[in-house]
């Protein structure tokens, strides 16, 4: 279970998170929605320790993440980055097996390669892709490789940062279905941040609406359309008029 209590984070004079409270149960898929610049990515980065919150507490299974030993803590996480964040200098299989080729999860090279190819197959890529470099792949294929890398070490928690940004609707649908299948199959806890309402409906068990550094509303996906919150209503229907200023 991930729990964030009264988390604040500012960059200089700009306050991003203003007392964020959030809870994600084990095995649950939570999607955070909200406009650009509302602190969605900052939230994920604070949990991972990529950014240090100014105040507040973040707990993973009851343990304070800032006091946790880094390597075992990070070994519990997989993350799909918005642009894939694949390493240009490594082949596709070396990207996927990155964690399996070094550190505490290190395996023999051949075994790591086999696991990488199996994970590539799981995300719908053929083994011949394994020896290519990321620059040779399309955006959709890079997202799939990023997804394969996120699940390669079978993490307990997977983060998805804008998983369908930049993809055509068909490829976006494929990625959404893959995320849903994999999360259910692995029994992992998932946190996704997105603007894409199709993704929200495909991936989420729970939805949280982030606005102005705070969670405005949270509840099951089935309750989202009728929740009555004017912020959620404006966001999910893409209205220009409403409490969320169109120019931020």
């Amino acid at each position, binding site marked *: 279970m991930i729990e964030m209590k009264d988390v604040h984070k500012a960059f200089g004079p700009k306050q991003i998170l203003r007392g964020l409270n959030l809870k994600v149960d084990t095995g649950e898929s939570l999607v955070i929605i909200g406009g650009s610049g509302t602190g969605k990515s900052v939230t994920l980065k604070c949990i*991972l320790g990529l950014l240090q919150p100014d105040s507040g507490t973040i707990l993973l299974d009851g343990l304070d993440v800032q006091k946790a030993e880094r390597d075992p803590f990070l070994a519990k996480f*997989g993350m799909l980055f918005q642009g894939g*964040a694949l390493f240009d200098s490594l082949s596709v299989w070396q990207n996927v097996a990155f964690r399996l080729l*070094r550190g505490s999860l290190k395996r023999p090279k051949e075994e790591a390669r086999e696991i990488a190819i199996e994970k590539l197959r799981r995300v719908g890529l053929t083994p011949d892709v394994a020896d290519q470099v990321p620059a040779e792949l399309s955006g959709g294929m890079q997202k799939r490789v990023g997804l394969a890398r996120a699940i390669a070490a079978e993490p307990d928690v997977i983060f998805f940062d804008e998983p369908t940004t930049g993809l055509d609707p068909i490829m976006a649908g494929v990625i959404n279905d893959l995320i849903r299948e994999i999360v259910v199959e692995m029994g992992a806890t998932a946190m996704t941040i997105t603007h894409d309402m199709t993704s929200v409906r495909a991936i989420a068990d729970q939805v949280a609406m982030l606005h102005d550094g705070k969670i405005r509303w949270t509840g099951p996906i089935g309750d989202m359309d009728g929740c009555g919150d004017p912020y959620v209503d404006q966001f999910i229907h893409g209205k220009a008029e409403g409490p969320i200023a169109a120019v931020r």
Partner: protein
Amino acid sequence: MNVLAGIGRTVLGFLQIIGSIALFAVDAVSHLLRPPFYPKEFFTQLGTIGFLSLPVVGLTALFTGGALALQIYAGGARFNAETVVPSIVAIGIVRELGPVLGGLMVAGRVAASIAAEIATMKVTEQIDALTTLSTHPMKYLTVPRVLAATLSLPILVGIGDIIGIMGGFLVGVTRLDFNAAAYMINTINFLEASDIISSLTMAACFGFIVATMGCYHGRNSGRGAQGVGRATTSAVVSASILILASNYIMTEVFFSA
């Protein structure tokens, strides 16, 4: 008062950057001594930084040695001292021009490349990805580059020194009618072990500066293409200035009587 405040802000900003670079360098050295180590990354960087810089360092040394021989011959002729060409070429190349020009050429090639690569990795979230994959960016990116540059620059400069002396030798023998054997004997007899040790020590220091500046500016780059461009320029400029400044300091240490 506004002028004074502006000067104060500039000085404080400058001191802040120096402090930040110093802390980064200390951090890099401390990671150099603690596992995990990434030998594959180190050997890859040794090839990229060391081996691939050999042509540029070699050609620089060759032409500099030749030009130096011509200059010293012309200058020496003013007081009938043309015979000093072999010894002055040797001392000039080994003590000063070999390490400094080698360092500056490598700064142009390597600091720019390191800064651009790491800055692009930062902009495309690859450095965040490294962290989430339980890999410390300082250990995986900075340490192999700093170690490879620090170890390969002395070898490069050593080869460059030999090529530079050979450049002077070729010009001396073919253009200035020196006897080949006498030229070589003069060169070898004049050079001392301390000249070579100082040259290689300077080179190691310059290698450390080049890689550290490339990594520092890459890690601290701004966003977007402009950020990457600025990081690259800053890496080359700061590495070059630090090479020239540290060259003066080390010359004082090694050679002031």
